[in-house]
């Protein structure tokens, strides 16, 4: 008789979520960057720069993200039902912030009012925050529900927005003061993001998480730290020195900052999103009359 083979974990191990594909990831990627761009543009508008094109770009990114997620839901014709649970659902709140973003953004575009632009920027930041809370509320995915995930997703959204602003630097005609302010802002946000990233990975490891999540995050660590913080910081340093073509260095730094953020979020949504898995806290007492050790297959770190 052929011996029966058993799968490790017997179906209890964490598995990579399959319900949110690239379309859902695109909402977090585009929506986060778009909200961040609106916020960064609002700050820049305080220096008297015309940011109308940036407002359009920010709203377009959020629109693309929302369209992607609309294409993903099972019953798109019922999409308006998303507004029915503001009491506790951050997805409802994100959906409520979106029209506010578009309304204020359109008003700012049409009137060129600094106040409207600042309000649109704040709404953009609120959109990014809502997205961070959506992930954080999903208890089934340990890599998302960890408290350190929320500041990371928020920080990377703002850093991507600032990065996009840097990408646009050659076209928006910045003065020396504005350029210095932009470089300082991007540098600060990159620093905050890389610190949030490292704190997140460390905290996840120390509290315990599915090994698949830890592996997926470790695989991009170098790209997030070197490609998403150190290299752009160097380019920004070159950019601030004011050599000819230095604005190109700033734009290149922006590209790296954005690319690293998008990689981070794609990894978080698609590659590190392992489920909690199932756990046998106590083995049933049978036969020898003693319980065996608890079984929690597929988990790593200290947890």
């Amino acid at each position, binding site marked *: 008789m052929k011996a029966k083979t*058993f799968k490790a*974990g*017997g*179906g*209890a191990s964490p*598995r990579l*979520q399959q*319900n*949110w594909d690239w379309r*859902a990831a695109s909402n977090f990627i585009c929506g986060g960057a778009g909200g961040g761009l609106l916020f960064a543009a609002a700050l820049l508008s305080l220096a008297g720069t015309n940011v109308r094109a940036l407002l359009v770009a920010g709203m377009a990114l959020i629109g693309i993200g929302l369209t992607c*997620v609309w294409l*993903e*839901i*099972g*019953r*798109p014709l*019922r*999409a308006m*039902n*998303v*507004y*029915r*649970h503001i009491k*506790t*659902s*951050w*997805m*409802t709140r994100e*959906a409520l912030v979106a029209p506010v973003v578009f309304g204020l953004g359109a008003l700012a575009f049409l009137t060129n009012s600094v106040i409207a632009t600042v309000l649109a920027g704040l709404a953009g930041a609120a959109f990014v925050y809502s997205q961070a809370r*959506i992930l954080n*509320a*999903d*208890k*089934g*995915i340990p890599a*998302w529900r960890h408290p350190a995930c929320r500041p990371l997703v928020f920080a990377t959204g703002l850093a991507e927005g600032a990065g996009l602003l840097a990408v646009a630097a050659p076209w928006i005609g910045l003065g020396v003061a504005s350029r210095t302010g932009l470089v300082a802002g991007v540098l600060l946000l990159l620093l905050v993001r890389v610190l949030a990233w490292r704190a997140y990975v460390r905290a996840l490891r120390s509290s315990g998480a599915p090994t698949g999540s830890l592996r997926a995050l470790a695989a991009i660590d170098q790209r997030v730290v070197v490609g998403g913080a150190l290299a752009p910081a160097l380019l920004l340093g070159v950019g601030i020195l004011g050599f000819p073509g230095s604005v190109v260095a700033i734009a290149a730094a922006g590209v790296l900052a954005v690319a690293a953020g998008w990689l981070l979020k794609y990894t978080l949504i698609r590659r590190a*999103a392992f*489920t*909690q*898995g*199932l*756990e*046998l*806290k*106590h*083995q*049933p*007492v*049978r036969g020898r009359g003693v*319980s*065996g*050790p608890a*079984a929690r*297959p597929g988990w790593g770190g200290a947890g």
Partner: protein
Amino acid sequence: MTRYVMAIDLRRCVGCQTCTAACKNANATPPGVQWRRVLDLETGEFPDVRRSFMPVACMHCDEPPCEEVCPTSATTKRPDGLVAIDYDVCIGCANCVMACPYEARSIVDEVRFAYGDKPIKSEEVRFDPARVSVATKCTFCIDRIDLAAKTGQVPGRDPEVTPACVNSCISGAMSFGDIDDPESKVSKLLAETEHFRMHEDLGTGPGVYYIWDKK
């Protein structure tokens, strides 16, 4: 108050999957979707190895994370403890799937039957187009529970108003009833045994108790 819960005696479960089959038959879930399944766990190292079976499904939590994140209010917590889904309201966004730490929810986007394009008899009777492209999960056989209110029968005692999986269990490992009633079978069983609930540390307050030893 009434709070329906399930108690599963792990000492009795033999991993026969009869509950899985009974659930499939009662609810006509499509291929690949099991509202109830039995995990087969091998632990330890030779020669000290153990094999345990653990039936899992929706835990009908006290604080259901699926209900909290649902943007449509399609998922609701009923006063009797059951977590229900309104298929006509759900948009299939899968946020609840991500929120559930018990992997209890599924979304299937196309009509599928067990054997090809045509439904078998039980599927013919029970196929519900409203369940396509929306979240689905174990309902604790909600229709039967609701029937009890009309007939005066007692869920967990009378088979007609008891979940199919509990009725089918060959070893009597599964019990169902009102934990707020001290005279119910589950209340008495839980009072005299050692038990745990899965992932309690997440604050979900699951409504399924796993019995692992006597007191």
